[in-house]
């Protein structure tokens, strides 16, 4: 079975920014992390892209999938908790871009 995948573009510890978008497909990037900046904490491997799979496609090329950590007080205005609180979520590479300082 052909499982071509793009090589992982980001490494552990790298800061990444989540793209903004609501494509008319089965995308799995919740809007609450869109436009937010986080840190890659793990690379979970490469998987078929749900945005193609969910619509009868083959999901190829496979997309690297990262576990990305965000600070809660960056995600939410008026977050009720200390600055140390975090959230980790899996994000496909096509939703990430390098953070431009």
């Amino acid at each position: 079975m052909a499982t071509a995948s793009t090589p992982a573009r980001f490494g552990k510890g790298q800061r990444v920014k989540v793209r903004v978008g609501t494509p008319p497909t089965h995308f799995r990037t919740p809007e609450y992390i869109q436009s937010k900046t986080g840190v890659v904490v793990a690379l979970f491997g490469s998987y078929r892209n749900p945005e193609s799979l969910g619509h009868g496609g083959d999901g190829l090329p496979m997309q690297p999938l990262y576990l990305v950590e965000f600070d809660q007080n960056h995600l939410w205005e008026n977050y009720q908790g200390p600055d140390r609180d975090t959230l980790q979520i899996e994000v496909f590479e096509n939703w990430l871009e390098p953070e431009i300082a």
Partner: protein
Amino acid sequence: MSALSTDHGDHDHAHTGIEEDVELSYYAQRAQAMESLIIEKGMCTAEEIQRMVDTMRRRSPTDGARVVAHAWSDAEFKARLLADAVPALLELGYTLPENTPKVTVVENTDVVHHMVVCTLCSCYPRALLGTPPDWFKSLAYRSRAVVDPRGVMKEFGLNLGNDIEVRVMDSTGPDTRFLVLPRRPAGTEGFSEEELANLVTRDSMIGVTDALSPQPAPAAD
């Protein structure tokens, strides 16, 4: 009519007998239609679907609790479980059904407390906990768990100090499900794995609570 009579002695109000099936909901009808299509197209057989349903129904939080209790009792096993859960689970005889997501175990400590949610649907480590509770799938939990995890935990009876990092795990990926390894309760030194497992609740493996504290021994007179 005798077997289905609504007159059953212990109470006398009239109600409908049990001969009518409730009309299937829209989603139940859709699931049934998809199952028929999958079978007709030869993607898998009715027996395979039934076998998978049976496998998942046999799993319950008792399975997860056994894994947690073993990790509490055996530091080397715990290290293997946290590093790569699937082969570690195999040591205890747990195989994950083919084509189902893997499990990633995250450890709660005095420094960090994990709490799991799936904001997009109901991703859940079914292979170790069985089917998720209804509240886990509710819009209320799925939205509030990310915005206000500490508030949600308070409603479950857990008040965490601000010196502990609360780390929400939002499970959106295709291939792994998060299982929380709760903190081992104080006062459980010398407990057998079976005694420990009795303290491990489903909710503590989702991370909305801690594991139970042991019942204090009755005071000696």
